[in-house]
């Protein structure tokens, strides 16, 4: 029984079986065996060790012959460990005393050794940890053989334990069965956190070395609100957490019951609540939680989830799927907004020095018109299937916007020439997330059908803060008066020019800011599905009069602290249990 503390990034409690992801996604299928099977497991272990020794011996000989003795010698340690009787005895003991499978015992014992080596304050020795993991992997492969599970083909509920989760891994997992995440590294804004919140499952990150403490098959409790992970809990802890889980689920169910109710203030003012999604599948939950449509479809995952750039058909298929699920409700598709993340930078031939401010997003698209057109063609073709709107990200100059629109027009021309149907009057909007766009919102408003304020990036650019940098992430704050001023002005510019304005950044789903945004005359909020019920509750419990008063007060404040304190107080007055 181990209690580990990390950063809770997505609330909820889950008690489930762990699968541990290593770099090769090797998972342990089974843990326990009936006691009388222990001897058979010991046999399997011996066979695997013998085979591993043979393989390693051959490998060493071949490498020595081909490359040299020095290099061949790196396998000596592996061979030494596999011949180490005390190690083998340990694994055998684990099998017989705990009635577990050979693979589970191997994993437990090897990870214990890895842990011990990590604790030693000797860099050279902790380098051997890699070797230990290699040995573990070699034995596991021999024991598990070809029939190993992968995250896509799970047959039971699990929680995923990993060092870190890459977009390619989260994009390829079975959403039905994955019930929680726990990772060694990461913070509130890392990819794991974002996906967990979007999926509405608990997640704890920054645990340090959870991957060496958990073996596939272990029972694990993840408490995403408190940031705690318990490995192999005892009965007391199980009961305690089951209770906490029940309470959380109850609260969620209650909130969900309000889903069909309109997002209307007590004095009759109606707003739209929409959801942000990464995959068409997310739409089901979005509707369940009361979303009236999709305010932001992040199309990046179409690119991240596979090795190649998605074809026009792959785009089209995803959009068609999304529209089918929406049954006529609106879908705002944001064109490719990639490039500044480490995943694309790692693949790039010449990684940029400051990708954050570099050739990303719309800029990248305008430098690769064929790629841009592929996505736009798919969007235009899908426009006949439902209420589709297209939105350009990271627009910072009027020229960029006009060029993007020109490419869109070209696409329409081509489709017309080919005799393919599309909706010519498709609403075309832009993300307002760069300060230049926010400051010139009045001019931009004349050239688009709608705005969507991307507060996440707007705050980063305005306060010059990288929210994924743990050293300065504390400076990232939507409540900063400068940010609030920009938001207010963009909303105003939109209203003055008769276009709709939404906010699709995290601020829209944060109940702390609902009153304020309402009072600033924001009519459309787009957020992660699990955030919908609470925001709706606040809206339904207040009046526009009150919200406007709150906003007026807030806009006179000088500091984030004042703003947040005041908002907390005011929100508690109408909904005491929200914080």
């Amino acid at each position, binding site marked *: 029984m181990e209690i580990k503390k990390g950063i809770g990034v997505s609330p909820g409690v889950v008690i489930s079986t762990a699968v541990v992801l290593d770099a090769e996604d090797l998972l342990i299928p089974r843990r326990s065996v009936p006691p009388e099977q222990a001897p058979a497991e010991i046999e399997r272990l011996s066979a695997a060790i013998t085979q591993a020794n043979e393989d390693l011996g051959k490998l060493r000989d071949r490498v020595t012959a081909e490359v040299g003795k020095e290099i061949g010698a790196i396998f000596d340690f592996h061979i030494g460990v596999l011949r180490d009787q005390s190690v083998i005895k340990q694994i055998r003991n684990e099998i017989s005393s705990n009635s577990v499978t050979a693979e589970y015992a191997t994993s437990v014992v090897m990870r214990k050794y890895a842990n011990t080596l990590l604790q030693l304050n000797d860099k050279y020795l902790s380098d051997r940890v890699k070797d230990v993991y290699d040995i573990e992997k070699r034995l596991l492969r021999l024991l598990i053989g070809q029939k190993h599970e992968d995250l896509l083909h799970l047959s039971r509920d699990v929680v995923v334990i990993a060092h870190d989760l890459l977009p390619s891994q989260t994009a390829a997992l079975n959403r039905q069965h994955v019930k929680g995440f726990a990772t060694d590294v990461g913070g509130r804004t890392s990819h794991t956190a974002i996906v967990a919140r979007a999926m509405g499952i608990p997640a704890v990150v920054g645990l340090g070395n959870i991957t060496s403490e958990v073996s596939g098959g272990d029972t694990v409790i993840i408490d995403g609100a408190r940031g705690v992970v318990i490995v192999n809990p005892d009965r007391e802890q199980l009961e305690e957490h089951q209770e906490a889980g029940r309470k959380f689920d109850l609260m969620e169910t209650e909130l969900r019951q309000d889903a069909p109710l309109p997002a209307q203030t007590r004095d009759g003012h109606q707003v739209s609540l929409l959801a942000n999604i990464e995959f068409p599948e997310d739409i089901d939950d979005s509707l369940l939680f009361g979303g009236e449509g999709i305010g932001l479809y992040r199309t990046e995952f179409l690119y991240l989830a596979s090795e190649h750039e998605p074809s026009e058909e792959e785009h089209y298929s995803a959009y068609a799927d999304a529209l089918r699920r929406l049954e006529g409700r609106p879908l705002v598709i944001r064109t490719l907004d990639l490039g500044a993340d480490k995943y694309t930078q790692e693949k790039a031939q010449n990684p940029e020095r400051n990708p954050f401010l570099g050739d990303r997003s719309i800029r990248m698209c*305008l*430098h690769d*018109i*064929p790629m841009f*057109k592929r996505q736009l063609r798919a969007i235009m073709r899908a426009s006949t299937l439902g209420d589709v709107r297209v939105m350009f990200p990271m627009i910072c100059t*009027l*020229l960029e916007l*006009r*060029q993007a629109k*020109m490419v869109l*027009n*070209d696409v329409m021309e*081509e489709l017309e*020439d*080919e005799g393919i149907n599309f909706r010519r009057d498709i609403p075309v909007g832009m993300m307002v997330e760069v300060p230049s766009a926010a400051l010139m919102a009045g001019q931009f408003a004349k050239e688009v059908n709608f705005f969507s304020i991307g507060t996440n990036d707007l705050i980063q650019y305005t306060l010059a803060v990288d929210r994924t940098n743990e050293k300065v992430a504390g400076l990232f704050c939507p409540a900063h008066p400068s940010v609030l001023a920009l938001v207010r002005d963009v909303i105003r510019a939109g209203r003055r020019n008769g276009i709709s304005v939404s906010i699709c950044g995290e601020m829209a789903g944060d109940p702390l800011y609902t009153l304020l945004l309402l009072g600033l005359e924001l009519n459309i909020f787009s957020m992660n599905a699990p955030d919908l019920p609470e925001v709706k509750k606040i809206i339904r419990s207040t009046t526009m009069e009150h919200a406007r008063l709150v906003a007026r007060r807030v806009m006179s404040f000088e500091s984030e602290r004042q703003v947040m304190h005041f908002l907390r107080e005011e929100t508690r007055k109408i909904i005491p249990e929200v914080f």
Partner: protein
Amino acid sequence: MKLKDFIVREAVVPVLEAGDRDGAIRELVTSLAKAGAIGNDAVEPILAALIKREQTGSTGFGKGVAVPHVKHASVKQMVGTVGRSVGGIDFAALDHQPVYSIFLLLSPENQPQQHLQAMNIVFTNLQDDMFRKFLRQSETREAIVELLDEADQGK
């Protein structure tokens, strides 16, 4: 695909006489006809189509360049040419600035792939700041052709 696959060298106009959009386009189309790239009787219909296309949406992409283009029945084979204006022409461009370099592209009606490829090559080159600058400075037909050849090799 390379620029030299469709740009008709003899039709390149290093110094456009016209100071207005429609006049400049006419000059380029006529130049193509004189070079034998299109039939003389095709000039007026093609011109009308080009101007109509400009009216629908300016091809002045910004940064001093424009790419008027059209697909037309009278065009048997994809052809294009380049024109240079010293004084600048009002093309109602996206950035409201004058246009100094014009790439004209004419395509047959049923070869969408080729047309796309040619447009892409032209666009890619025009995105390059250096290319645009040199083009603007190239005062003779030879200089322009040389620039296009270099661009073809560089890519």
